[in-house]
């Protein structure tokens, strides 16, 4: 086994961007017929390393050997000529074209014959078990289907070394399962597959070998069959990590938000939420589970005043005083009613923050209207920003750095930090730890718990059932826009939640 030639060997690779060292003397081997996981926290240099293999960047130092021969990879085309193809996190597809058109786009070597190309694409799909209609337009596709197009595109170009950058970040558990089946088929076909990830359960499930990077340095290579989550975490983080999530007993529980018979339709008339009723309590974390696009986004946005509702009611119940309806109120109205409602949206840089503005100006988003003067007060938000940076340990060069330059985890800390800074009575969060590394994720869970102990009604929309089951006091399961069930987080299990996610009421009632 150890004598075979590696499909790709990267030797002593170093890459710097200005003063930042992204990779420092990294050496890894990729073998055919194997799935390799490249594991590391955000900013550990995984993607940079693979970008050098796929011709996006040039290494500052080091060698790349393909099948034992030294290779110069100066462009993605060079990489493809060597059989190396990479599927990036952000898809590069033309929306108005079909899958086939996108796949053959830019190919000069063969005749332009869409029928023939579609036939070849079907062949590839059959071989590996992809589910793809070559004639479908990209704008009609789900994220998972778009990803399939990207993978087939690379295979169509005869790549036999495939690199996937965090392929499961955008997929539901079911879609992930399907992708893994495809990857296993590729392994059977003697292809070399690399997946960049920071999800440990996936590493264990799919890969044969795992290479771990930390702060741009190579830490070690393990056989997946001989390791476990704790060992990998410790190597990845660089110290022993506590992997349990706290769940303090709720105190002083009282209704804070009462949703009754809420129905929401999308702009094109599709029912997104159907007769949803529940109560969110102060001092409790209400977890919301459901397969993606089951109405989670619409629910949170309706509460936050960003989504028009068809009928039903959303009422805020203050600690003392009469309850008030939030229907027909926009975020500004809600603020003016004296309700401190915080919302951490799924789209952090596109909705929660302004990517090109610095930390101070982003802190100001919620509070800039304060005061009668026509000019803004930057002193207070600057102080808030400094507090958030100090308390949540945000890694940033300074308060005047645009948030787009921060890593995903730090962006999220800034956003959550701002939302918590306004001392909310209701905190809505959507996929608060998506794309975050272990350290940042645990920091966020911790913040959720602190808010709960402060008497905040926390609504936590999550995708990782293991986390929901450890963190939430109650779990509301959505299925196709309807409430499929509300469970006690302490007594339920993954199986029960999963059943409710896929069929209304768990398939028993109705």
């Amino acid at each position, binding site marked *: 086994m150890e004598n075979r030639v590696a499909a790709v060997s990267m030797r002593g690779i170093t890459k710097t*961007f200005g003063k930042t060292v992204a990779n420092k003397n990294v050496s890894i081997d990729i073998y055919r017929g194997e799935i390799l996981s490249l594991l590391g926290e955000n900013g550990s240099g995984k993607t940079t390393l693979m970008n050098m293999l796929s011709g996006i960047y040039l290494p500052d130092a080091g060698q790349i050997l393909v099948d034992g021969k030294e290779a*110069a990879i100066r462009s993605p085309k060079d990489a493809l000529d060597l059989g190396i193809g990479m599927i990036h996190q952000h898809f590069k597809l033309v929306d108005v074209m079909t899958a086939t058109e996108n796949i053959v786009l830019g190919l000069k070597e063969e005749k332009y014959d869409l029928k023939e190309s579609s036939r070849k694409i079907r062949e590839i799909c059959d071989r590996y078990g992809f589910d793809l209609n070559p004639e479908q337009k990209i704008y009609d596709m789900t994220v998972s289907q778009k990803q399939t197009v990207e993978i087939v595109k690379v295979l169509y170009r005869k790549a036999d070394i495939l690199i996937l950058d965090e392929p499961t970040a955008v997929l539901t558990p079911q879609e992930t399962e399907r992708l893994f089946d495809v990857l296993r088929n590729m392994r059977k076909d003697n292809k070399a597959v690399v997946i960049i990830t920071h999800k440990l359960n996936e590493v264990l499930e799919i890969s044969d070998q795992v290479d771990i990077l930390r702060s741009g340095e190579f830490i070690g290579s393990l056989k997946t069959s001989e390791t476990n989550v704790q060992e990998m975490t410790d190597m990845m983080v660089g110290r022993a990590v506590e992997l349990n999530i706290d769940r303090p007993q709720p105190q002083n529980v009282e209704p804070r938000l009462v949703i009754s018979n809420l129905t929401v339709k999308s702009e094109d008339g599709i029912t997104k939420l159907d007769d949803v009723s529940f109560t969110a309590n102060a001092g409790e974390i209400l977890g919301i589970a459901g397969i993606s696009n089951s109405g989670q986004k619409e629910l949170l946005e309706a509460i936050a005043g960003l989504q028009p509702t068809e009928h039903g009611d959303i009422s805020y119940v203050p600690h003392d005083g009469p309850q008030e309806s939030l229907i027909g109120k926009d*975020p500004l109205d809600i603020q003016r009613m004296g309700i401190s409602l915080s919302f951490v949206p799924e789209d952090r840089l596109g909705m929660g923050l302004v990517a090109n503005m610095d930390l101070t100006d982003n802190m100001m988003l919620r509070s800039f209207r304060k005061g009668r003067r026509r*000019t803004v007060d930057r002193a207070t938000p600057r102080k808030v920003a400094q507090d958030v940076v100090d308390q949540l340990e945000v890694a940033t060069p300074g308060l005047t750095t645009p948030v787009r330059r921060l890593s995903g985890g730090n962006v999220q800390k800034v956003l959550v930090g701002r939302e918590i800074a306004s001392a909310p009575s209701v905190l809505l969060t959507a996929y608060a730890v998506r794309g975050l590394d272990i350290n940042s994720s645990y920091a966020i869970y911790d913040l959720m718990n602190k808010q709960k102990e402060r008497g905040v009604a926390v609504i936590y929309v999550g995708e990782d059932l293991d986390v929901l089951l450890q963190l939430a006091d109650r779990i509301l399961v959505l299925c196709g826009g309807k409430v499929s069930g509300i469970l006690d987080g302490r007594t339920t299990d993954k199986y029960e939640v999963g059943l409710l996610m896929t069929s209304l009421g768990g398939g028993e009632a109705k």
Partner: protein
Amino acid sequence: MKESGKGPRVHITKRPEISKAQAFLIRAVALVLAIVVCAVVTYLLTGDDPGSVFKTIWEGSFGSSRRTWVLLQNVSILLIISLAMAPAFRMRFWNIGGEGQVMIGVLATASCMIMLSGKVPEPALIFIEIAAAVVAGAIWAAIPAFFKSRWNTNETLFTLMMNYVATQLVAYFIIIWESPRGSGKIGIINQSTQAGWLPQIGQYKYLLTVIVAAVLTVFIYIYMNYGKHGYELAVVGESERTAKYVGIKVGRVIIRTMLLSGAICGLAGALMVAGTDHTMTTTLAGGRGFTAVMVAWMAKFNPLGMIFTSFLLAFLQKGAGEVATQFGLNQSFSDILSSIIIFFLIGCEFFIQYRFVFRKEAK
């Protein structure tokens, strides 16, 4: 195979952050290079001594105190129009209708001067004509803004079309008010009574315009960088979804900002008609509504930077005209020179963003 293991000889990479001083140095080098290229081109094409051509360009602007004042007036008007563009551009609202917004202000001022002359007291006339220009400009700009906020129409095409409408309206009224009859133009309005003419400060005919430009520069600078409105429009420009998320009324901000833009353009029109030119022609704006787009962009919408860019462009234009007359060259030659300089100044931005990396020879 061994030699193929290296990277290409030269490749381009993005620079890490660059200091302000470094960026300034790059721009200065670009300007020097531009002048050198201009000199070479001048010599090759005309055989004239480049030195004397440059001297003429300089004298075109600073040759006499009158010329200097004319330059300052030109810079001021260009700067005022550019200041009007800046907030809209920061909001990513591509208003290229400055020309039309100025022209409608010109028309409003001229019509007040012509129709109300002698009917209302002088101070009232001045107040009315300026107010009319400001309101007309604001309305002209708010129309595309309204359509944009309501039906998401394309503001670039819309504002562009509004330019033609405004210019044709001016042409129409020139025929109606032509004087003397049959000349096809309006002479000096109220030449004998000077009704509606803006007062002259001391002996300086153009000083008022310069002062207005200076005040507006400070105002827009504060408005955009320290004002709540400025902050709101920046958020809208960066991300409409974020704006909605924090309860900013996007449509209202778009219309409000364009009302301001249009009002300032209208004011520029009033300053030209009532302050300096005292007549109305279809070419009074003279393309400055478009030049202002360049001024604003080159300064990255920073009002203070726009003082320099508007000065540079006005200076080049003046100098170019002077070269053409002094050397008996046609106007196009001077345009070539200004284009070379602008090319270098815009082109150097590339070197501020990127750098070339040369392969180190193997040891």
